[in-house]
Every structure is written in structure tokens, then in C-alpha cells.
């Protein structure tokens, strides 16, 4: 297939638009995703900080701290639970929150023995929190079966040292145990606060247990818990989470969003933009196709015009209405076509004139040779005729010398007649048209040879004519016959005095052409004059030696040349001669 701007340009533009669209979509998708992620992270952090504020719970700590300094509580604990029980209980009840069903306050001695408690649920003794001295301390989130709870504990002032020294116990521990209400409603209420797509997690920074306030969960992976940055992890699906420690506690909160929610806007962007981009690409491709057609149509016109002119239609012109470079191209093309047409016409006129002039010259030559043929012969005939009549009718009155002179006249007029005939034949050759066809050269040579054998009189010795197989030629049979006849007659003539004359007709191939030759063992010629052999009236032997007008070989040369061939001769005095001529083969 041929390369065509009309096809490649729209393809190129389409590819370009497609590349731009793909880059635009990719970059856009990335941007939207980044933005959406950033918004998500901000939300996560914000919610984290709210939760942290909620769980660090300053007031509770203050309350328990205060309770540990309450005189009634201190007195009760210092007495080892022996005295002031009613006052201590009263102090506890005062400090118990309204949501008392999930909160229990305990007073224990340092060994952990429970001295007094409020609240309705019991969890045994193992939930003790290592108590703070100056203020209450939070214990880690703990699990008993399906219950999650944590404690806050504070020791009554100045008693630890004594306890550490193994001295008498004086004081104890105030501990609050809070049970987390885990149910789906709570969880849903919490997530509802954030719009429903976010999950809030709460647990220990060190590990299990964790909860989303609906159920107990295992802790998020350590990399989530240990990093302040948003981290992806799998929990049912891919989540993006940010964890944040709750200061002053062993706890940690984490919020998470499903990754798909973050990616969703980017996907939405793709979904909206991709068809738009496709539309732009399609429109661009169509525009490029149309544009390239508009651009190349004039070029195609000029190309067709050039082809038309090249194939000979010189009247072809291309439309040149446009006002741009293409219009200029078309106009230049038309100007060029005009010039080509003009010079072509000029040439044709010249050829016609020359042809006419040539025809005129030919006609003149024709009438000239006609005149020569007719008018030159008549006086010659008269000279010959009357000199003969003189000899016949008045012989008695003529002395021998007069008779001899009349003989000379006779001889020369005959010769003159022969010269005129030969010259006319030679000049006719230039004017007659060739009627070309395949010619069987072997048969031609044989016919001529037979004729020569028949009419070969006055020979002393024998004459042998050998004809090799000859390839056929393409030419005018009549004229080629004359070539063969002239050459064979020459050969016969110049071997007349040989005791055993031999003539050979043969051929050989030479660089795509056929070279025919006629070889004899006759008188030959001086090779120095070989180029004179083929001139008109050129003779290398005297008329006394060998008769002839010197036109035969000139005729041979002219016929061969008119066939597009060459003619030449080789020979040496008394060593025979070979005449060569080439002819185009039968297949042109």
C-alpha cells in the first residue's frame, strides 16, 4: 500500500489526542484520588482527636483522685475497714455517677482485699489497676468473656512507702471499674455521627482487646497502632485507618474508612470524564480526517493533473480557486502545463513543417530520379542506336580505326546505361518503405546460390557454394534477397579465375545479434582500402579485371543500415574476402 498523508495525518492526530486523553484521565484520576484521600484523612484525624478528648476523661480522674483524699474514705481505709464504714459508703455514693449501672466504686486495702463497694456488677478481684499516687491512674481495657471494662484507681496519700517497707498498713485504694456497653445500637449511633461510612475503634495501645462498641475485636495490626500516619490494612475489606493514643491512658483510638469510599470519587471522575474524552478523540479524529482531505484534495488534483499530462493529455488543468499555498501550487502547475502544452504544440508544428519540407524534398528527388531515368536514357539510346546503325548500314565506308572507335562508343554507352540503372536502384532504396516480416535466411541464400550456379558462365574451374544453417532474420525479404544476391554475385565474380572456387555462407552470434557472412577464396582486396569498398562507384579492381559499376556493395550497405544492422569486410589480396553483416533477430 502506498503511503498517504491523507491517511497518516488523521491517524497521527487521533493517536495524539488519544495520548493526551489518556494522560489527562490518568493525572486527573490521580489528583482526585489524592484529594479524596486527603479529605478522608482529615476526617479520620478529626474524629480521632474528638474521641481522644472523650476518652482522656479528665473529670473522672479528678473525681477518683478527690475521692482518694476524702477524709471519710481515708479514715475508713486507714482503719483497715474497721471504722467509719457508713461515712465512707456515703462518700462513695456521693461520687457515683447517674449511670451507675455500668460503674462500680470499690475501696480496697493495699493487698487488694475488697473492703467496700457500690454498683451492681461484680468482676472479682483480678481487675485491680496499679493505682496512681498523686492522681488516679487508668488501667488497660480488659475482657471477661463478653464484657469489656477498665478501671481507674488512686491510692490514699502517703501510704505506699509504708506498705513497701512492710510496716503496718495505713490506707488503701479507691478504684472505679467501668463496664463498656457493647451493642450494635451504640455502634450505629457512633458511626451515624460521622455519616455512616466511618468505623470507630477503641482498645489498648499494647494490643487486645479492641472494640467498635458493637462487639469485641482483635487489635488492628501493630503497624497501624505504631504509626501516626494513615495506614491500610485488611479487616473484611481494605481499610484506611489512623490510630491515635489517648494521652494519660494505656488506650488508643482508631478510625477507619473503607478504601473503596476514598477511591469512589476518582472512579466517579473516570466514569464521567472517560466518555467525554472519547467524544473529544472521536471529534478530533473526524476533524483531522476532514482537514487532511481538504488539505490533500488539491494535492491529489495536482498529482492527477501531472499524471494526465504525463500520459499525453496536455489540455488537463487543475482547479486553482484557493487563495493559499495550495492555490498557488495549482496555479503554478497550470502555468507549467500551459508552457508544456505550448512547447509541445510548437514542436508539433515544427515537426509538421519539417515533415512537409522533407516530403517536398522527397517529391523533388522522386521527379529528379524520374527525369534521370527517362531523359538520360533517351539520348544514350540514340547515341548507341545510331552508332550501331552506322556500323551496320555504312560498314563498307568505314576504315578499321573508325570501326574500333564506334566500338568504344558502343561499350561506353552500354556502361553508362548500366550506371544509370544501378544509380537509380540505389537511390530508390532510400525512398521505398520496408515491408518487414520474418525471413528464412537459409532458404534465401539457397535460392540465390542456385540461381548463380545456373547462370555462372565463363568459369574455368569448379564452383562450390556451401550454405550453413542460418538463423531467421526480421526484415524486408526482397531487399535482403538483394543483399544476399549482391554478395554472392560478388563472391562468384571475384573467384572466377580460381581453379576450385569456394563460397561459404554462415553465421555466428555476437552480443545478442546475428552476424551473417559470405566468405570466398577469390581475389580478395587490400585491407587498407576496406572502408572504400562500400562507397558508391568505389572500385578496388579495374573494369578490365572484373566488370561492375561499384554500386552493388553500396546497395548492400544501405539495405543493411536501413534494417538497423552493420556491414564490414575482411580480406587480403589473393587470399579471399569475407563480408559480414548483422541483422536484428526474428524476435524484436
Amino acid at each position, binding site marked *: 500500500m502506498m503511503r498517504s498523508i491523507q491517511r497518516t495525518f488523521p491517524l497521527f492526530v487521533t493517536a495524539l489526542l488519544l495520548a493526551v486523553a489518556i494522560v489527562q484521565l490518568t493525572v486527573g484520576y490521580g489528583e482526585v484520588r489524592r484529594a479524596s484521600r486527603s479529605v478522608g484523612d482529615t476526617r479520620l484525624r478529626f474524629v480521632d482527636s474528638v474521641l481522644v478528648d472523650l476518652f482522656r476523661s479528665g473529670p473522672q480522674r479528678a473525681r477518683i483522685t478527690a475521692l482518694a483524699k476524702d477524709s471519710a474514705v481515708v479514715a475508713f481505709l486507714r482503719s483497715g475497714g474497721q471504722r467509719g464504714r457508713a461515712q465512707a459508703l456515703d462518700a462513695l455514693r456521693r461520687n457515683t455517677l447517674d449511670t451507675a449501672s455500668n460503674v462500680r466504686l470499690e475501696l480496697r486495702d493495699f493487698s487488694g482485699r475488697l473492703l467496700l463497694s457500690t454498683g451492681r456488677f461484680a468482676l472479682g478481684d483480678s481487675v485491680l489497676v496499679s493505682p496512681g499516687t498523686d492522681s488516679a491512674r487508668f488501667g488497660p481495657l480488659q475482657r471477661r468473656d463478653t464484657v469489656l471494662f477498665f478501671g481507674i484507681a488512686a491510692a490514699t496519700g502517703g501510704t505506699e512507702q509504708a506498705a513497701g517497707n512492710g510496716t503496718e498498713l495505713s490506707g488503701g485504694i479507691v478504684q472505679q471499674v467501668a463496664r463498656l456497653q457493647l451493642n450494635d445500637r451504640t455502634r450505629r449511633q457512633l458511626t451515624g455521627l460521622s455519616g455512616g461510612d466511618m468505623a470507630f475503634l477503641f482498645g489498648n495501645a499494647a494490643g487486645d482487646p479492641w472494640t467498635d462498641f458493637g462487639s469485641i475485636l482483635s487489635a488492628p495490626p501493630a503497624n497501624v497502632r505504631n504509626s501516626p500516619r494513615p495506614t491500610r490494612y485488611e479487616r473484611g475489606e481494605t481499610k484506611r485507618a489512623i490510630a491515635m493514643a489517648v494521652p494519660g491512658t494505656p488506650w488508643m483510638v482508631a478510625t477507619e474508612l473503607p478504601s473503596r469510599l476514598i477511591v469512589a470519587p476518582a472512579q466517579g471522575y473516570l466514569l464521567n470524564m472517560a466518555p467525554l474524552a472519547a467524544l473529544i478523540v472521536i471529534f478530533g479524529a473526524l476533524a483531522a480526517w476532514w482537514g487532511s482531505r481538504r488539505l490533500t484534495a488539491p494535492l491529489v488534483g495536482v498529482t492527477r493533473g501531472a499524471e494526465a499530462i504525463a500520459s499525453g493529455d496536455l489540455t488537463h488543468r487543475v482547479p486553482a480557486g484557493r487563495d493559499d499555498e495550495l492555490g498557488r501550487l495549482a496555479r503554478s502547475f497550470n502555468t507549467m502545463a500551459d508552457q508544456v502544452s505550448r512547447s509541445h504544440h510548437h514542436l508539433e508544428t515544427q515537426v509538421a513543417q519539417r515533415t512537409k519540407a522533407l516530403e517536398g524534398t522527397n517529391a523533388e528527388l522522386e521527379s529528379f530520379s524520374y527525369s534521370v531515368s527517362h531523359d538520360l536514357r533517351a*539520348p*544514350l*539510346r*540514340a547515341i548507341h542506336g545510331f552508332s550501331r546503325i552506322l556500323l551496320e548500314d555504312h560498314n563498307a565506308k568505314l576504315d578499321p580505326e573508325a570501326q574500333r572507335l564506334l566500338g568504344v562508343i558502343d561499350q561506353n554507352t552500354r556502361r553508362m546505361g548500366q550506371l544509370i540503372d544501378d544509380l537509380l536502384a540505389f537511390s530508390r532504396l532510400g525512398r521505398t518503405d520496408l515491408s518487414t516480416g520474418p525471413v528464412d535466411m537459409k532458404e534465401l541464400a539457397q535460392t540465390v546460390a542456385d540461381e548463380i550456379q545456373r547462370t555462372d558462365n565463363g568459369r574455368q574451374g569448379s564452383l562450390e557454394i556451401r550454405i550453413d544453417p542460418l538463423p531467421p532474420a526480421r526484415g524486408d525479404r526482397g531487399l535482403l534477397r538483394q543483399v544476399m544476391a549482391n554478395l554472392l554475385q560478388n563472391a562468384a565474380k571475384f573467384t572466377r579465375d580460381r581453379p576450385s572456387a569456394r563460397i561459404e555462407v554462415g553465421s555466428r552470434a555476437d552480443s545478442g545479434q546475428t552476424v551473417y557472412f559470405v566468405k570466398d577464396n577469390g581475389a580478395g582486396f587490400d585491407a587498407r582500402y576496406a572502408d572504400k569498398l562500400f562507397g558508391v562507384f568505389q572500385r578496388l579492381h579495374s573494369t578490365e579485371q572484373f566488370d561492375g559499376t561499384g554500386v552493388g556493395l553500396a546497395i548492400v550497405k544501405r539495405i543493411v543500415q536501413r534494417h538497423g544492422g552493420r556491414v564490414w569486410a575482411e580480406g587480403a589480396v589473393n587470399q579471399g574476402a569475407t563480408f559480414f553483416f548483422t541483422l536484428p533477430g526474428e524476435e524484436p
Partner: protein
Amino acid sequence: MQSHGVEILLVEDNANDAELTLRALKQRNLANQVFVCHDGAEALDFFSSGASPVPKVVLLDLKLPKVDGLEVLRRLKGDARTKAIPIVVLTSSREEPDIERAYELGANSYIVKPVDFEAFSRAVSDLGLYWLLVNRPPH
């Protein structure tokens, strides 16, 4: 008219050729009733002059003053009264177009006058003998 008993009409403008022709005919005793015209017009007059005798043969040269030989040939062969008369073109021209044209116009024979006297004499006497003695005309 002197044209009574004309057997050969010789149309020849060259007096030498005419003489040589007559001599050749004479040697065969064929020259008694020969009438010579010296140009084409004279030849045409010969036939248009009323009670024209019918020669046994016309020997016609081609290159003639006034009306040339081919024209004479065309007129004679185109005329119902003369078209049966044998016409032998006797000319110096051996040009192929002349020969073709002459036969096209209805020439009965075309002889090229040889330059050689003996050959010429032989040709003329032979054709005289043939057309006067051998050939059998329609009348």
C-alpha cells in the same frame, strides 16, 4: 485523312526514338502502316477525328508534351469506342509507380525501352510481330 490502313499508332515525342522504332519495325516489314503522333494531344485528336481507323496496336510513350501518356491511356481506355484497342506502353521509365498506374488504367503491356540498341530493336520488332501477326483482335 492519311489514317487509312493504319496498323500501328506510335505516340512518341522523341524523333530519335521514333526513328529507331521505325527502323526496327521496318526490318521486319511492319513499318508500312505506321502513324506517328508527336504528343498526347495529337494522339487524342487521331481518335476523335470522326471516321477513325482502328489501329491494331498503340505504342505509347509516357513522357509526352501537352497531354502525358498516362492521361492518353486513361482517356482511350475510358472511351467505349477505343477501349478495345491494345495499348503497349513503351517508355524509358522503369519506375514502379508508373508501371502500376499504367496497368491500373488498362494498359495491355508495359515495355521498358532498353538503352542497348540490339535489345531495343529486338523488343520493338518482337512486340510488332506479336500484336500485328500473333494477337487476334475482336474485330
